[in-house]
């Protein structure tokens, strides 16, 4: 069995490792070095400046503004998406109480799931372009619906107004992600024995109690994974915002990833941009570790 394993190991591991090392490991490693330089992309000359870039960042209000937006996303995106996902998944999977105390999914739950999951298929660029049109102040779906309902006062220039642009983008992020978690939570709920829900129903537990006291504790592992994944998504956000607003208006939707991109490819401050990337890496890492820590709980074994 182990005879002649080295030819295979070389043939199987060298090509992927070479490609991966050259295009992934090396850029990540280099960015930590470039962050210590004053390199201005267009000229080949640069010198090491130590932690100057990081010191400058401390006083850069644009970076702070972007970071603050990321932190708002970090709080709101997981909270809204998971709450809505759990709620809809509960309605779909244990929402129907068809006959007496039995607990079942509602009618047509398969169709709902297919529709809810659909945005997951679309690229961020399609989602971004589509919603920019929905928010279009003149011809968009949203404002014309509001006007048709006689709510002209509520029709806004959604993406052009610093007061609303951030919330409009957040809503799109929630819209695009909820369906995935409805399916994910739904699959987890299927593995919870029906008798538990039926017992709760017999004991007269309301649906809210069932959700908070039974579903959430039993699904904790899945919720934890969802939380971490959405947190990472919230700290990124670059692609959607690049498509929808480019960080505007007046930097109200700017995020750290976009700041890096603007510094690197708008102003060619490669050293400074890399320093922003390094900070972003450490923030992402600590948030991931922290949320895994904070959400750790005794695991509940099902039979």
């Amino acid at each position, binding site marked *: 069995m182990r005879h002649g394993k080295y030819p295979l190991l070389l043939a199987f591991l060298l090509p992927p490792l070479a*490609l991966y090392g050259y295009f992934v490991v090396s850029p990540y490693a280099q960015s930590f070095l470039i962050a210590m330089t004053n390199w201005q992309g267009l000229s080949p000359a640069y010198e090491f400046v130590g932690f100057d870039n990081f010191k400058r960042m401390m006083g850069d209000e644009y970076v702070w503004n972007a970071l603050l937006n990321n932190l708002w996303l970090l709080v709101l995106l997981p909270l809204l998406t998971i709450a809505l996902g759990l709620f809809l998944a509960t309605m779909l999977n244990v929402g129907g109480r*068809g006959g007496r*105390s039995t607990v079942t999914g509602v009618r047509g739950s398969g169709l709902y799931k297919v529709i809810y999951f*659909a945005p997951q298929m679309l690229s961020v660029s399609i989602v971004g372009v589509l919603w920019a049109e929905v928010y279009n102040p003149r011809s968009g779906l949203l404002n014309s619906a509001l006007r048709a309902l006689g709510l002209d006062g509520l029709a806004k220039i959604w993406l052009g107004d610093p007061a609303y642009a951030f919330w409009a983008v957040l809503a799109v992020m929630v819209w695009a992600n909820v369906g995935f978690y409805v399916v994910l939570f739904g699959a987890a709920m299927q593995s919870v024995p029906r008798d538990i829900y039926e017992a709760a129903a017999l004991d007269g537990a309301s649906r809210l109690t069932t959700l908070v006291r039974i579903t959430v504790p039993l699904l904790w592992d899945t919720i934890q994974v969802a939380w971490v994944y959405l947190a990472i998504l919230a700290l990124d956000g670059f692609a959607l915002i690049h498509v929808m607003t480019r960080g505007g208006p007046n930097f109200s939707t700017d995020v750290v990833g976009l700041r890096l991109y603007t510094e*690197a490819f708008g102003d060619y401050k490669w050293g400074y941009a890399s320093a922003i990337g390094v900070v972003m890496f450490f923030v992402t890492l600590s948030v991931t570790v922290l949320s895994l820590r904070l959400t750790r709980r005794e695991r509940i074994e099902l039979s």
Partner: protein
Amino acid sequence: MSEQIMDAAPSAVDERGSQTTQAGRPAKPAAGEAGRGRKAFDGTLNVFSHAFLVVWGLLTALPLLWVVLSSFKDDAEILGDPWGLPSALRFDNFARAWTHGNIGQYFVNTGIVLAGSLTLTMLLGATAAYALARYKFVGSRLVYFVFVGGMMFPVVLAFVPLFKIVGGVGLRDTLPGLMLIYTAYSLPFTVFFLTAFFRTLPDSIAEAAYIDGCGPFRTFFRVMLPMAKPGLISVGIFNFLGHWNQYLLPVVLITSDEKQVLAQGLANLAISEGYRGDYSRLFAGLTLAMLPVLVVYAVFQRQVQSGLTAGQMK
């Protein structure tokens, strides 16, 4: 009986519907009188739960339907009557999007990149994962962690050095460059997922193949790879969607218009539409970009859902 009707889901008012659950199991005997008041409450909640589900369904489906309908309209209809139906099926919008909007070129580019990147990702990912899952050697754990550790880094961190490195080997603004980069950045998850999968396959079959005189390479391609098919399909769907929808990497690496991929080209089309005011072309382009994945999804929705959610949970 009236109680039973109240219990029934609003869509299943006849009492027989309430006797059996969806799974076809007979209903449990009555709970007794205790819950009578609450049951009426739950009856209204049933209506509510359907209302919520329908509302979210509409919120999801309406924007998509609106784009498809708008793609048949002319500009006057799009701007003047956003909720109206198109007065005629204007297929020339699609023709204009395909040729003048460059959507056709973007489709071809995306197809070329995907054919290369997906093949390469699956081949390199599967071979690396197999070597790591089935063989112990000095540094095997280190190699595994180097691969998997790549998942912890935000891709934007690599932007500046990657731009330089790819330019250095003359692959910037080329489709083969994009293929290699997509592959490289897909390896962490692919290796991670497939290593776990290969570890679940029994040793005894590989041993048997060896005893039958099968060399290690043949064992992999003829015996182990076919056995790993379910895992390969899951990670294949995952990567297909990831590469098809990729936006970050082309934004940094592709500059000339005729080399752009669909996701990137569409976003640029939307920006230029703002100046040119050809809205019907933009909606037609959006529909063209959206429909293929949605059709594939409609056909394979079960596999796609389970493939993507399984990937998430590993």
